[in-house]
């Protein structure tokens, strides 16, 4: 058992690629060792911009030995007339390292052949590692790779050093001509001299002496701690930004904190502008006190201290320049109110075929009106339409051109300053919400209506032109738009028929798109279903439960989710599973058959009469429950048929010789199928038969 310690040093690797790379390297190395019987114990990873670090402990010293059967020439040419091995047989034996006497004859589908068992001794861990490591490291899948020098590579950046130690000894190998050794270096400026290392613990200790922390989580925690401490010194609190903190912890090896301040006059700028300018341009976090920003910022420096104050002075200089720019843009934008900029939208192209943003605004206003009508939000109509008209105007402002991350937000801020009602400016402000999984949906009804209208308009327009995202290609962000749409409708529990809304949106495009609403839905519906699958999966519903709900064909999302949840509630119950099994059987039997009517006089067997009666007595309740949206009750009623269904299949032969009886039994099953298909398509539910039998047995 031994520890493998691995470090690759290179020029600065882009922050966004570090974590995926080290994860891939760790996983692949672990799996390849596992496949060779060299199962490691724990895997520990680390990285800084200039190094990837991997430690796997508990690796056995040797691969397991292998025995394999090796097949040689046909038996017919293996022995001469005297039964002695021929030259062919002797050659095969020699190749396998055995005596001709050790050969035997095996029978294969192609005939009889000579064969022998070849023993391969497992290689040493060192040998395996020296083969594996350059291959795995060289093959890492980078988002963007490059060549350097005389076209070496490709890799993410030029490679400068490699340390590979197994049980403290160098494993001979190389990466792009850089040989493995036992020496590394510290920070390129503060501790550039090389030093020898023995193992992971020694490495970590010597790195720590140089202020370098290679474990990402630890580095991030120290950075956060340092920033909280600095905020406390400023008598404020850090405004947390986990995403930015991830980035900052990725662009340093030494988690030093720079604290800087700026002229308080910039606090006159809207908070959103200050935060965006500091975040987007300077990767800096803000500090607040009693809900108000302080004229300070915090960011990272790849060093422990700032002895001459140069780092702080430099960062402050840049921040002031940026804020000055921000103030200039803000001043330009505020020369006229947002509503006076509306005209500029007619010069801003949304899509060549779908028209300008002015055209889009017109459509959103109309679609918002329909939505408010359907939802009974008459009192919100005026605010929603006012917001819809101003929704995209901020795209023409200097501030949004400079900080695209502020789109929507900036329009909301300007609308607020222009004195538009709260419902209106919040609708504009929230229009792109939710972006990430943690985001909430728009705060107000006007906000929801306009956000839905905007997204449906985009989706229908793009799908109407056949611009359907495929693979990783989604230039118009349609997945995000669809995801946001589904979440708003679901989380606000809006009884909207999306098919209907899409058809309305398609009509508003008039002749700009040739396809009609129904035609667009052929591709748009499955696209939305994928988003629904994703969201339902995140909520913990099993995939077959989701499919069964989706197949019921409801385009009203809260209704659809109520169906999915009802299946989820009953799906472990034996009676329900039994009906689900029966549903599959019925589907198979009736699948190619035309629709028939049940004739009572032809119900001969007691079991089929019982089934018919049970179905008749349950039908009304099933219908009522479904109409009332009480899907769980509906499914329980359906599950109630389990016993009579079971009995029917045991005692009655559907494919009777008498064609009339056969037809009638098919008709009976068709009526059952119609009934049990209410709420959800049960055939989608996966039932493990043995498990089901076991479960029903224990319950009986």
């Amino acid at each position, binding site marked *: 058992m031994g520890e493998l310690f691995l470090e690759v040093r290179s020029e600065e690797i882009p922050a966004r690629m570090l974590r995926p790379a080290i994860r891939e390297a760790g996983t692949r190395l672990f799996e390849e060792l596992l496949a060779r019987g060299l199962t490691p114990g724990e895997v520990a990873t680390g990285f800084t911009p200039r190094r990837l670090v991997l430690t796997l402990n508990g690796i056995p010293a040797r691969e397991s030995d292998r025995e394999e059967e090796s097949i040689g020439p046909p038996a017919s040419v293996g022995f001469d007339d005297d039964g002695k091995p021929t030259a062919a047989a002797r050659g095969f034996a020699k190749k396998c390292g055995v005596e001709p006497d050790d050969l035997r004859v095996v029978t294969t589908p192609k005939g009889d052949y000579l064969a022998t068992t070849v023993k391969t001794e497992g290689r040493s861990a060192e040998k395996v590692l020296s083969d594996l490591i350059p291959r795995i490291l060289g093959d890492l899948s980078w988002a963007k790779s490059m060549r350097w020098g*005389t*076209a070496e590579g490709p890799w993410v950046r*030029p490679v400068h050093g490699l340390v590979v130690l197994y049980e403290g000894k160098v494993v001979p190998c190389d990466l792009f001509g850089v040989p493995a050794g036992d020496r590394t270096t510290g920070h390129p400026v503060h501790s550039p001299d090389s030093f020898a290392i023995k193992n992971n613990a020694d490495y970590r200790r010597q790195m720590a002496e140089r202020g370098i922390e290679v474990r990402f989580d630890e580095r991030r925690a120290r950075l956060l701690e340092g920033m909280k401490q600095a905020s406390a010194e400023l008598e404020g609190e850090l405004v947390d930004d986990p995403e930015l903190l991830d980035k900052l912890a990725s662009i340093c090896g030494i988690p030093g904190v720079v604290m800087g301040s700026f002229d308080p006059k910039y606090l006159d700028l809207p908070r959103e502008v200050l935060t965006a300018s500091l975040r987007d341009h300077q990767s800096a976090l803000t500090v607040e006190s009693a809900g108000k920003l302080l004229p300070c910022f915090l960011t990272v420096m790849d060093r422990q201290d700032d002895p001459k104050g140069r*780092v702080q002075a*430099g960062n402050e200089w840049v*921040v002031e320049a940026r804020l000055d720019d921000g103030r200039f843009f803000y001043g330009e934008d505020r020369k006229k109110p947002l509503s006076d900029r509306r005209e500029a939208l007619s010069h801003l192209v949304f899509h060549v075929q779908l028209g300008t943003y002015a055209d889009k605004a017109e459509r959103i206003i109309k679609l918002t009106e329909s939505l408010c009508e359907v939802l009974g939000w008459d009192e919100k109509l005026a605010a929603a339409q006012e917001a819809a008209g101003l929704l995209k105007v901020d795209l023409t402002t200097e501030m949004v051109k400079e900080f695209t991350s502020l789109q929507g937000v900036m329009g909301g801020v300007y609308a607020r300053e222009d004195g538009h009602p709260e419902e209106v400016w919040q609708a504009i402000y929230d229009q792109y919400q939710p972006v990430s999984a943690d985001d909430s949906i728009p705060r107000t009804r006007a906000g929801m209506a306009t956000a839905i209208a905007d997204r449906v308009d985009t989706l229908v327009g793009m799908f109407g032109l056949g611009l359907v995202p495929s693979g990783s290609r989604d230039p118009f962000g349609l997945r995000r738009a669809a995801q946001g749409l589904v979440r708003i409708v679901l989380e606000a529990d809006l009884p909207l028929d999306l098919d209907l809304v899409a058809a309305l949106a398609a009509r508003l495009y008039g002749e700009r798109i040739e396809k009609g609403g129904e035609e667009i839905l052929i591709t748009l519906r499955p696209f939305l279903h994928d988003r629904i699958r994703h969201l339902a999966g995140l909520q913990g519903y099993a995939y077959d439960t989701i499919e069964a709900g989706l197949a019921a064909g409801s385009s009203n999302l809260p209704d659809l989710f109520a169906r999915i949840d009802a299946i989820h509630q009953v799906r472990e119950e034996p009676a329900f599973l039994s009906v689900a099994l029966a549903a599959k059987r019925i589907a198979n039997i009736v699948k190619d058959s035309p629709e028939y009517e049940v004739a009572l006089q032809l119900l001969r067997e007691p079991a089929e009469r019982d089934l018919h009666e049970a179905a008749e007595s349950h039908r009304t309740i099933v219908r009522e429950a479904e109409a009332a949206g009480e899907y769980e009750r509906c499914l329980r009623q359906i599950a109630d048929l389990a016993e009579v269904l079971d009995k029917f299949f045991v005692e009655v032969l559907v494919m009777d010789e008498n064609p009339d009886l056969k037809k009638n039994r098919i008709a009976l099953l068709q009526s059952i199928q119609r009934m049990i298909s209410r709420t959800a398509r049960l055939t989608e539910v996966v039932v493990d038969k043995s498990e089901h039998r076991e479960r029903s047995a224990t319950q009986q």
Partner: protein
Amino acid sequence: MGAQSFQELILRLSDFWSEEGCVIQQPYDLELGAGTMHPDTFLRVLGPEPWRVAYVQPSRRPADARYGENPFRLGKHYQMQVILKPSPKEVQDLYLRSLEALGIDLAVHDLRFEEDNWEAPTLGAWGVGWQVMLDGMEITQFTYFQQCGGLDLEPISAEITYGLERITMFLGLSRSVYEIDWVADGVEYGQVRHQDEVEFSKYYFEIADVEFLRQRFDGHEREAKRCLEAGLVLPAYECALKCSHLFNVLDSRGAVSVTERVALIKRVRNLAVACAQEYVASRERLGYPLLGGEAVVDG
């Protein structure tokens, strides 16, 4: 002692890279958008011949012109451009030493390399690299060229582009580019360049004759093609450069629509790509004079 003035910065960087075996070239005598467009970069990075060069290139960005009123933005700024082909293994170390040569004591600063890839669609060129941040300020673009004129490069060149005004401003923590010393305790940047910024801003945004610019664009494009047909790659490339600058002026004048923009960029790109291909062929015909061993044959 740190560099105290704009010109001292230029002198020290020229000295440093001269010591590293670079040809100290002069700015190209045409309007360029960036040092990359200088034939000693754009064409020399093609093909197998080694090359080391450093030069200052005034870079014109008509759209960034601000009538001399913005303390940070200029319609023309100066870049110090260095090309090392093939990129040496120690290129980052060399770069750090060049900063030290400017008197920047790295021991008291924070220097980081943040991902920033470079792409120039009009040149069919892209590369991979960083923006170099000194105490949070971008002072250099550092790029490993991967493709130029649509051709894969081998060997690979490292390009180091210093923003000279920015570095000078930063060293003195000046509040305005116009206040930096061009000569230490002597002539200021504004005294040398302010009138230039004011007049060219007015020209780019208000005065430039759109029809005349379009005619020149068409004419230079025709001339570039004629030169290429005659096998004259360097004159052809000059014409392509003129087209590129004329496009920038037309754009800043607000005379280019969205669709026309795409078409004009494509026309410039086609010229640049044709020049790159022709240049590679011309160097092959000459027997790659810079590969060494053979004397340059004077045709």
